[in-house]
């Protein structure tokens, strides 16, 4: 499991996940992601799952947990490039509405507009 966290000047955190996201991996990366969020006054998180090979409900827990972190500041959550199986898991969990189409750059531009809007 690998993750790459990039922060934009607008306070958007782009998190690219690679490999398998299960309970074991989620426990290892949660701390890193939370620290990045608290350090950099993050207003939105973009989860790019394009390189993620596998995700179970630990992924739902990880994303829901960070949504709770962002809730006090009305932060935005966007999910990009989930596989067909991941889309079903998001659907069961009521998170489908956070799946956006488009590239990272397009999403960052749109989010920047919303956040500064």
């Amino acid at each position: 499991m690998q993750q790459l966290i990039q922060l934009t000047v607008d306070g958007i955190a782009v998190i690219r996940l690679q490999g398998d996201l299960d309970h074991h991996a989620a426990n290892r990366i949660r701390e890193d992601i939370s620290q990045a969020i608290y350090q950099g006054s993050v207003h939105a998180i973009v989860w790019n799952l394009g390189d993620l090979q596998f995700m179970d409900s630990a992924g739902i827990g990880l994303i829901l947990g960070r949504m709770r972190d962002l809730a006090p500041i009305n932060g935005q959550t966007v999910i990009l490039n989930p596989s067909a199986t991941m889309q079903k898991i998001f659907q069961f969990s009521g998170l489908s509405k956070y799946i956006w189409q488009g590239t990272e750059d397009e999403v960052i531009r749109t989010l920047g507009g919303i956040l500064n809007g």
Partner: protein
Amino acid sequence: MDNEMTLSFLAVSENEALARMAMTSFMTVLDPTIEELSEVKTVISEAVTNAIIHGYEENRTGIVTVYATRVDREVTVTISDQGCGIEDVQQAMEPLYTTKQQMDRSGMGFTIMESFTDQLSVKSERGKGTTVTFKKQFQPVGSPFAAR
């Protein structure tokens, strides 16, 4: 029966990947679609994770056993632990129900397991352990619309 496998391992989280890998190999002969494969892997991962964090409360001493059989294109898998058991199975299976929200658990495990299998049963007894059994029928090779 065409094949049979028993895999027992210590209830530590790094073995969640081990269980998924073993099941992936067990299913290879069926030439499953990408979705069939990832759905069964998800079910295995959910059941094994439950055994580790709920059955044994992550005490790193218990044993989880995955027993799989295959008859033609139907796979039956049993995931069992001898942990603390589930007080109320029906409640545990409700979507979004979790006893560990502070640990970022979503409460979606059983919902996912039910959705991705053809048949699922859960037997549990307090202090004795939990057994999850599921069946999955794989589509015939060469069926239309199947991405492999």
